[in-house]
């Protein structure tokens, strides 16, 4: 009797509360909303997994902000403190770092899945568009987050970012000033990126996630597409309503368990990486004169840097300034380009093909960014040795030429037989490629991505340098000859033409 009375009393309280707060209603419209049975699929867990990562980022981010000081003078020290002194500080940093990697990765899978399943089509256009903005915001968070480390990688990342921004026609310098808070990377830069990273971007993400989820609730989750089931504006809403009526199940508790399993896998994965690989950096302090490693941005930006490092000048501007807005614009208006029709990827070969192509291109560029030497080796001038065969048998003047090559820091960009920087071509056989005059011209006038040394070399230094470089050819192979001498092989005269062009273009 007592038990019954208690339940009745509790029920009364619940009803009282529900009448005022509409909890049941809220539940039915959110966690309990019906989804098509086919959508309770493993393919549909990536959205919630991305959101989970974001929650982890919010939590760890708040904890990090307790210690981190966003000033150029102290950022580095506080990170060192977190990493090496504070109990479990490294764990926090590592979780935030890996959480961001997982978030970007899972988000990309989510976008791909939504694209392949045609979920952006009628009537979910706004869901898709808010998703595109969320994707950009997430990448923005990742980039600004990397700047928070404020170490060499961050410095180079920013430097190249600024260089890209500086290419904008007319307003280049203003854009750079706006981005960095001045012409150079300094304390103001860090404050700006801190504000973006902890206030502006997360706030915008929260707002857009709300919209994104609201759309998911009001327009319903996409049914698992079947080949041959065509989306038509006139009939789709009715068809969807039928599906829900016939085989709808409440998201909670029937649809959610897969998301929960996925969530624990994601958390497990993050923890695994945290424990195995730890936090990233901080590398050395960001002092441009003391870089003795080859810094690289975090992996999801490597492809951009590969473009910056590998493209010829004239293509670079297009690839970095024109192509991204076009691609993003296309993504954004995709639901209007392709609003109805087949949803299943089995009947959309072009969609599948473009996904494959995009991922291949990104993968290749990332690989190139990982392996390509896009910054000079700042210690090569005093540290890079020269293999014996490129020293022995040289005259005293040629030996001095090699000393000048070291002293003028040519080695930072140019390797000899693989040793040294790789920004410019290896010089091991430059004597077979260029004649004396061409060498002089290259050194004095520069060209391509090489600075002009005209004013920084005395005539003797130039003589010695050129004498040494002329001596750089494999045994038995003849040095390059002047193209005015009839016996010159054809490729050389072509090269001379190119050389002129390179100088002129600069």
């Amino acid at each position, binding site marked *: 009797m007592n038990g019954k009375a208690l339940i009745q009393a509790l029920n009364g309280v619940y009803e009282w509360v529900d009448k005022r707060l509409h909890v049941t209603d809220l539940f039915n419209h959110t966690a309990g909303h019906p989804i098509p049975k086919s959508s309770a699929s493993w393919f549909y867990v990536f959205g919630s997994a991305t959101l989970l990562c974001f929650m982890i980022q919010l939590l760890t981010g708040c904890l990090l902000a307790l210690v981190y000081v966003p000033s150029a003078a102290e950022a580095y020290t506080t990170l*060192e403190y977190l*990493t*090496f002194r504070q109990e*479990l500080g*490294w*764990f926090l940093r*590592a979780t935030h770092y890996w959480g961001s990697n997982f978030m970007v990765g899972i988000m990309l899978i989510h976008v791909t899945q939504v694209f392949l399943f045609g979920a952006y089509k009628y009537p979910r256009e706004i869901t898709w568009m808010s998703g595109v903005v969320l994707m950009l915001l997430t990448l923005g968070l990742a980039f600004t987050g990397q700047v928070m480390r404020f170490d060499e990688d961050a410095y180079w990342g920013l430097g190249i970012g600024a260089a890209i921004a500086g290419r904008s026609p007319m307003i280049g310098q203003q854009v750079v000033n706006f981005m960095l808070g001045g012409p150079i990377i300094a304390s103001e830069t860090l404050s700006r990126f801190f504000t973006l990273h902890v206030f502006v971007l997360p706030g915008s993400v929260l707002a857009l996630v709300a919209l994104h989820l609201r759309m998911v609730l009001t327009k319903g989750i996409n049914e698992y597409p079947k080949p041959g089931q065509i989306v038509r504006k006139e009939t789709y809403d009715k068809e969807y309503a039928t599906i829900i009526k016939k085989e709808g199940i409440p998201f909670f508790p029937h649809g959610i*368990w897969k998301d*929960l*399993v996925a969530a*624990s*896998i994601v*958390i*497990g994965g993050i*923890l695994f*990486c*945290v*424990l*195995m*690989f*730890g*936090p990233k950096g901080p*590398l*050395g*302090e960001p002092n441009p*004169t*003391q870089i*003795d490693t080859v810094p690289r941005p975090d992996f999801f930006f490597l492809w951009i840097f590969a473009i910056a490092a590998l493209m010829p000048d004239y293509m670079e501007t297009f690839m970095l300034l024109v192509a991204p807005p076009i691609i993003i614009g296309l993504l954004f208006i995709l639901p209007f380009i392709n609003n109805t029709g087949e949803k299943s990827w089995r009947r959309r070969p072009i969609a599948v093909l473009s996904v494959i192509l995009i991922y291949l291109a990104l993968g290749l560029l990332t690989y190139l960014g990982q392996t390509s030497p896009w910054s000079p080796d700042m*210690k*090569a*001038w*005093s*540290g*890079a*040795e*020269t293999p*014996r065969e490129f*020293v*022995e048998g*040289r*005259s*005293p*003047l*040629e*030996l*001095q*030429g*090699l*000393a*000048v090559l*070291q*002293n003028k820091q040519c*080695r930072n960009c140019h390797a000899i037989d693989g040793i040294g920087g790789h920004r410019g071509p290896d010089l091991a056989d430059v004597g077979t490629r260029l004649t004396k005059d061409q060498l002089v011209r290259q050194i004095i006038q520069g060209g391509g991505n090489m600075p002009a040394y005209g004013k920084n070399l*005395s*005539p*003797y*230094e130039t*003589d*010695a340098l050129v*004498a040494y470089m002329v001596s750089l050819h494999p045994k038995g192979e003849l040095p390059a000859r002047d193209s005015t001498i009839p016996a010159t092989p054809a490729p050389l005269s072509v090269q001379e033409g190119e050389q002129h062009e390179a100088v002129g273009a600069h």
Partner: protein
Amino acid sequence: MKIAALSLACLSAIALSGCDIPGRPKKEDRRPEPHHVTDFKTLYSQNCAGCHGNGQSVGPVIAMNDPLYLSILPKEQMRQIVTNGRAENGMPAFALSNGGSLTNEQIGIIVDNIYAWAKNPPPTNAPAYSAPLGDVARGAAVFAANCASCHGADGQGLKDKAGSVVNPAYLGLVSDQYLRTITIAGRNDLGCPDFASRVPGKAMTSEEISDVVAWLASHRENEFGQKLAPAQQ
């Protein structure tokens, strides 16, 4: 689900227990600030090996592990050279106070350990490291006797033996001191013998060395191709 929860619990237990976790940064992982590097090998290979070789490799300029060379150059003088450099002659100044990248302490570590390379007992009859230039005319005779067999009668070099030591561009880049250093210590790594072994059984005297360096220096030219009066030391 249970398995996932269990492994989660295990992982976090490991994380908190503080035992040997690969991901936890160790003290050694900490990147030393450049000014805190005190390891000679690192210091030498980053700052000197490119030009002076590392003992095994050959550099464009005299090797630092030549015992004879180390026996004639007083340690304090080497410290001066590394600190101040010879800006005119391509040897950079390394001290922070001179725009270089090394602290005085680091320079001390480099110099001390370079001298630890000199294992053989120094020759007792070695000429002084520095001395004023000698007499040009006598120097010509000394050159003919000691150097011409490889560098040619006029110093312009002999094919398959050795190159020109009177090329104005070469002489315009190196200092008189460097010429004297080479004349005493040679370039063992490249086949230029030292002062005692050019003519078998007859080591060069300090005066002969001053004379031949004066003769070499007398081939310097100004930018119009005119001979310069030899600089007095």
